[in-house]
């Protein structure tokens, strides 16, 4: 049965792995080019030009920073739109779901070949199980290749920001465990839709939709995988730069949450009041809110939790994938042909 699955789907399997190799190689090449031309242009060794001009109050030094920022934009122009290449990694699991997972069972039903396969001696359950397993194994190989692109992807993401550091959480979705679980989930979900609907188009489209909805939903859930560390908004500068910021509601004196509307209405009140024209340590928007019993807060997830979060994210999608795979097997086993 492994042979048959390979023979039937080798174009998709080879295609998926080839796309992963091409994308990874492409990102790596562009990132190498970005690093090299940055060095060539001397972006990091740029010293702002200084001039001494004579003013009535004596000579003054003027720093002309435009020479260095010109270098940065020159660098960015060299790379051009190629810096967006890493975005394709977000799309590959979706495409795999639609083009590999969708037709996996739906095509058999549409062409009635399931009646050929199900009446050989091996049985439906093994037929469906092996099909899913082979395709998922191929998807994992593709994901492993894409995972190599994480470093270069971070370089490309940094290009848009003049080359400043990219925080680990910003490329969370491109990290190995996450990308592998997205891939497996997408394929299992679309395969299930195909086994259920028996229509290729439905499987390709609805499978994609299920994948997208799950990705967005889980993405919104991510900041809450663990209870965030919460502190007053005024202490935001204390939070390590590489943490994941979490939006948490303001509280009143009793620690009860205050609605967003209340906070914003108080703030607009403050900005219309005369006191805003003399902000000081003892009188600013925060003290204005505090006087009225509202304390804004900020939460964050420290970078030390990064790999725990990866494990949770991958666990969620792998669990969903397993659920869809089981539903597919159950559907194949019990349904009328």
């Amino acid at each position, binding site marked *: 049965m492994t042979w*048959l699955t390979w023979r039937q789907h080798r174009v998709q399997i080879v295609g998926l792995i080839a796309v992963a190799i091409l994308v990874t190689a492409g990102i790596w090449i562009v990132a190498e080019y970005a690093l090299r031309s940055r060095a060539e242009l001397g972006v990091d060794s740029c010293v702002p030009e200084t001039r001494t001009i004579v003013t009535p109050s004596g000579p003054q030094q003027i720093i002309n920073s435009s020479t260095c920022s010109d270098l940065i934009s020159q660098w960015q122009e060299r790379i051009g739109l190629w810096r967006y290449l890493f975005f394709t990694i977000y799309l590959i699991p979706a495409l795999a779901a639609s083009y590999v997972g969708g037709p996996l069972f739906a095509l058999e039903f549409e062409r009635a070949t399931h009646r050929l396969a199900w*009446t050989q*001696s091996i049985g439906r359950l093994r037929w469906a199980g092996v099909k899913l397993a082979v395709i998922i194994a191929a998807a994992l190989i593709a994901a492993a290749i894409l995972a190599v692109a994480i470093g270069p992807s971070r370089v490309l993401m940094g290009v848009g920001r003049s080359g400043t550091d990219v925080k680990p959480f910003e490329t969370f979705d491109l990290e190995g465990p996450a990308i592998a679980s997205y891939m497996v989930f997408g394929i299992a979900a679309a395969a299930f839709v195909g086994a259920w609907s028996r229509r290729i188009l439905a499987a390709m489209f609805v499978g994609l939709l299920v994948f997208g909805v799950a990705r967005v939903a889980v993405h919104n859930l991510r900041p809450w995988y663990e209870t965030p560390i919460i502190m007053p908004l005024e202490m935001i500068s204390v939070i390590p730069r590489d943490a994941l910021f979490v939006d948490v509601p303001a509280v009143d004196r009793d620690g009860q949450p205050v609605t967003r509307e209340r906070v914003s209405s108080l703030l607009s009140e403050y900005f219309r009041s005369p006191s805003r024209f003399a902000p000081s340590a003892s009188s600013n928007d925060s003290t204005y809110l505090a006087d009225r019993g509202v304390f804004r807060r900020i939460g964050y997830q420290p970078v030390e939790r990064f790999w725990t979060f990866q494990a949770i994210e991958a666990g969620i999608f792998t669990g969903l994938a397993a659920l869809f795979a089981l539903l597919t097997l159950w559907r194949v086993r019990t349904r009328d*042909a």
Partner: protein
Amino acid sequence: MDAVVETSALTKRYGSVIALSDCDLALPEGKVTGLVGPNGAGKTTLIHLAVGLLRPTAGSVRVFGHDSVRETSKILPRVGFVAQDRPLYRDLTVADTLELGRRLNERWDPAYALARVRRFGLPLSRKIRTLSTGQRAHVATSVALGKRPDLVLLDEPVANLDPIARLALLEELMSVVAEDGLTVVFSANALADVERVCEHLVILVNGRPRLVGDTEELIESHVVAIGPRTQGVSALDGDLIEARHAERQTIRLLRGPGPARVDDGTIVRPATLEEIVLGYMRPAMEVAA
């Protein structure tokens, strides 16, 4: 006579549509059984129930004495099945398709399957989608027979084939039955094919067996009487199956020894299989309509 396929009170419903209702049948071993009936009579449903592609709504099918739902794994290795329109993987070559048979069946005779494919001059390296309908039919039956099955179930095996391919396939099936003594059940719309090869006949109408019996017996026990137009059943012996009235004549299909008197000008002759089949099918269809 042992029954290879045995149904008891077999019923299959698709939503509110009844495809088979309360069907009791026993298909004999070592014979070619033809399953005949109008479109929608339940032929495909019956065959699919036997190979476990469908589950009965009520009742049961037993193949080789095994339940078709719970013991499918005991049935399938011994059954060669070709579904309607002979589904095959279009992008596989003929050789790949035989390899599929080998890999998916523990009972598989590679030499036999290959010899069959060669006999029909099918190029091994050609992809299925480039083959003609007739060639595909030969590949599909080769996969079914390569299992060296004890029972062959074919759903409309000769549909869409030209007369030559039709005959070639049927003769091939007949010789397989004769050599290996296996049981063949096939459904057909064309009565001529049935007449040519079937030893046993099941006429299905509206999900119920209307007539079951050995072909020879059926032919021997039915007569056609063509006489002057009369409404009632005249003094003809036997059970009236169907009476059709033309302008001046009445044509009757009778089951029984035939008429004792023919003095009103009635001509009596043995019925052909086609006349028997149509004679049983038409009245049942009219009742349903």
